[in-house]
Every structure is written in C-alpha cells, then in structure tokens.
C-alpha cells in the first residue's frame, strides 16, 4: 500500500507530462468534449514542433551535455589532489577545512550570480559554453572534495607506506596505487557533478543569452516565458519529457553509483 502510494507520488507527475505531450492541444482543453479521456487520439506534433524549432530542442541537450562533461572533468582534476591531501593532513587542520568545505556545499549558489556575472563581463566569458565550467567547477568542488576525501580515508595507510618503501614518489603513488582504488568513488562523484551542472539554472541564465547556446535549464525557462498558443501545454509537456529523458536514463543506468555517492556523502560529511 505504502509502496504504491510512493510510486504514484513519484511517477504521477511525470506520467501526466508524458500523457499530455502525446495529446492534441484541443483534447487537453476539452475542446473535443469529454475531458481527459476524451477523443482526439494521439499525436507526435508537439515533439515535431520542438525538434524542428529554431533552434531545434536537441541543441539544448547537447549544450548541457558539453557543459556537464567539461565541468565534471575540471572539477575532478581540482578535487582529487585536494581530497587526497586533506585526507592525509593532521586531524585538526583536516577537520576545520572540511567544515568550511561543507558550509560551501550548502551555500545557495544563486547568491553568487551577480558577482559571477560581472566576472563574465570583465573577462568576456559570456556566451561561451566551456567558460561556464569555471564557475561550475567552483560550485561542485565542495561536494566532490567531501566525497573523495572520505574514500581516500578508507584506503589503508599500509598500502601507501608499502609503496613508499618501494621508492615510489608522491605522483607515482597517486597515479598507480591510489587512483585505481578510487575509481568507484570518482564515478559516483562524476555522476553527481554532471547532474548538478545539467540542472544548474541561475548562472547559466545570466551567462548565456544567445538562444543557440542555451543549456537545458534556461531554455526551459525561456520556453515557459514565450507561449505562442493560449494553452501551450502540449509543447511544454513534450519539452519536459525530452528534458527529463536523458537524466532518467542516466539514473537508471547508474543507480548504484549515484545512490552510493549520495549516501557516502551523508555518512562521511
């Protein structure tokens, strides 16, 4: 019973969007008579309209994927060495630094948008998808550092000491001993970072203005603001479905890593 309620609560709104996206506009407003289940059949018109729009909808998904991928790479490149050092630092320094990082993780990013916008203006970074990785990496670093630090701590010190005895330097130890053991944690962190970047809104909204460079989140807001029809919900719903599909796929494919990443973050954070 409770499980069924949870299923309906979680999936209901999404199923409704899927249903709406496949129904002709007149059917949605009862123009054909008979309300929800009424006649009118099914249609792909809303999807066609989106995919042949100007710009076509899929470009937003590509932009988001590009920003997500480059931000994830940059974040991990910065976070891995930092997390390693943090986990090997003395107890006190490590604790107080981790606390600061945790506070940054909870900080609402929207409060930063104005200063970051000025940064974009002064350094001519606006409307540059790759440059968006610079603030995104900053926003994702706290979470990545906390997650990776916890995993570095789980690696027994003896292993590293043995590598020192073998005469391996710091760099070699990281590359050949520690990183292979870190792969699961890095995968979890990468997925969470990617999801965050895919969904980020306020910074993308203020950094990007050219419509063919928008990422998904600001594109959705722009679609919401511009309605050609009085009841444009068929097209809206189709956009919702297309915008959600990649992430739902990602969740289904990598559920274990994502869930373990989130729970690890809770336990060690």
């Amino acid at each position: 019973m409770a499980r069924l309620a949870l299923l309906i609560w979680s999936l209901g709104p999404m199923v409704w969007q899927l249903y709406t996206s496949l129904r002709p506009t007149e059917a949605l407003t009862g123009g054909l008579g008979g309300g929800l289940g009424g006649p009118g059949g099914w249609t792909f018109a809303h999807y066609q309209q989106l995919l042949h729009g100007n710009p076509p909808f899929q470009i937003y998904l590509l932009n988001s994927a590009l920003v997500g991928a480059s931000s994830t790479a940059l974040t991990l490149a910065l976070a891995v060495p930092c997390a390693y050092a943090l986990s090997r630092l003395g107890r006190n320094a490590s604790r107080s630094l981790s606390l600061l990082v945790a506070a940054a993780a909870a900080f609402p990013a929207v409060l930063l948008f104005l200063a970051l916008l000025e940064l974009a203006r002064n350094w001519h970074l606006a409307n540059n998808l790759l440059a968006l990785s610079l603030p995104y990496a900053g926003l994702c670093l706290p979470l990545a550092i906390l997650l990776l630090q916890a995993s570095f701590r789980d690696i027994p010190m003896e292993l590293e000491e043995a590598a020192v005895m073998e005469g391996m330097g710091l760099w070699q130890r990281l590359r050949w001993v520690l990183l292979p053991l870190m792969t699961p944690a890095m995968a979890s962190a990468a997925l969470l970072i990617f999801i965050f970047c895919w969904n980020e809104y306020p910074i993308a909204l203020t950094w990007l203005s050219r419509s063919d460079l928008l990422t998904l989140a600001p594109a959705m807001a722009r679609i919401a603001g511009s309605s050609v029809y009085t009841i444009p919900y068929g097209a809206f719903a189709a956009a919702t479905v297309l915008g959600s599909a990649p992430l739902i796929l990602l969740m289904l494919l990598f559920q274990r890593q994502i869930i373990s990443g989130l729970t690890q973050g809770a336990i060690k954070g």
Partner: protein
Amino acid sequence: MRWKLWLLMAPALLWLLAIFAAPMLHYAWLSTQAETVLTGLQPRPVGAEQWLRLWNDARFWQDTWQTLRFSAVSVLLEMVLGLAMALLLHQPLRGRGALRTISLLPWALPTTVMALGWRWIFNDPYGPINQLLQGLGLSGVPFLSDPAITWLAAVWADTWKTTPFVALLLLAGLQNIPADLYEAAALEGAGAWQSLRRITLPLLTPYLLIALLFRLAQALGVFDLIQVLTGGGPAGSTESLALYAYLNAMRFLDFGYSATVMLGSFAVLLVVAALAGLAFQWSRTTQAEELR
C-alpha cells in the same frame, strides 16, 4: 612532506575562494556604491545609503517573510515525509532497489523542467488535480492565481522534488544502525513506535541535522522553482529573496542595491541556520534528559 600536501590543495582552495569568498567581498563593496542606469552603470560611492534603504524596504521584509514561510513549511514537510520514505525504503521488501531508484527520480530532474510541468498540473481548470476535483463535483482550486494558495503550490512542488534527497540521506543513517539493537529492544518488549523513538531517532540525529541544515540553506535561496512556476506572483505573494535580488539586477538594473539585497538574504540565512542549530541542540539535550 607537509608543504607538498598544501601544494596539492592550493588550486582547489584558491578556486573555492574565488567562487565563494570573492563574490561576498565584492558585494560588501558594491553595497556601498550606487550602480544604476542613472549613474551610467558606473559605481559611485554612496556610503550606507543602500543599507538604510534595505532596512526601510517593505518589499524586502515581505519577501523575507515569504521566504521564511516557504522554507519552514517545505523543509518540515520534507523532513517528516523523508523520514517516512527512508523507513519504507529500508524495509527488506521485494523490488527495493527499483523502488529506491524510482523514488529518487524527482530529485534528479532539472528544477526548471519540472516547474514547467507543475504549472500544467496546477492549471485551473484543465490540470489533472482540478479535473479530478470537478469530476467529484467539487469546485476547482486556483492554485496559481490566489495569493493565499499559490505559495502552498510552490511548497508542494518543492517537497515533491527534494523529499527523496532527504530520504536518501536518512537511509544512509538507517543503514548504519546495527540491527541487533532492534532485536534486543524487541526482546525487552518494545513496540515499533518505542524502538523508533528510543533507537532510530536518537541514532539518526546527526543525519537529521545535516539534512535539516542543508535543506534550510537551499530552501532559503529558492529561485529556479519560483521564477518558472509563478514568476513571484500573483501580486508578489511568492517572491523570494533570491528572486528579488535577481530582479534588482537584471530587470531594474540596480546592481548596487542588488548586492545589498544579496547580503541581506545571506544575513537572514545565517541567522536561521544558527537558530536551527541551537534549537536542534536544545531538543537533543531535553530528549536525552527525558530518556534518562
């Protein structure tokens, strides 16, 4: 050896300073400058003028109240429902893994995407909720056009999206509680309610605190959902502090005051986080005394 560790940390720490600390310092400076269309978008020092303006700005205080109201209700709901969801997902039932993934889906979706979806779900009269009410012979609810109701619609949408996140954090805590504690309690005749109160809740405290503080901070900065779902309306009844700061900069082109509002919002956040932490501490000590 030690300096090498600091060297490894330096890039990330500097990056964090640049993205989190530098903006705050910049706002502190910008809040003492007028930078509007009237000044040709060039900064001109005005001292504490904008801080006085903030103090006397009825819209700022109204938005503070609305943001606090939204945060308090939605975070409370998320904690209670999140705990229930976590307990359910912790049960050794068939299909547990699939259920966990499905219930986490709402959290993964972009807020702007689902905010647009909710606009249609709450639609009056064509949305499914109102269709259902009308089918039952009841009158529809103007979810998005009645100032007394719309903020609750925003709470609803936020709760839908973030409860799974809270549930997952608490689930991590549940998994860390040794099962033999429950077995021992059952042997001594404790019922389900008693073991929840005496074992689960006390041992879950650190997780509840993390989830509470994290969610409070995020809810107090609510922006994406409000901007797409209601745009702050009707009649400004759902406008949040972050949206007000955004409008000041991007619509009124009043950058100096936007920075002031930003810092004002941050101050509200700090006060609330401190109060929540204290209240939590207090409830913990009274709880401990009660159990003794």
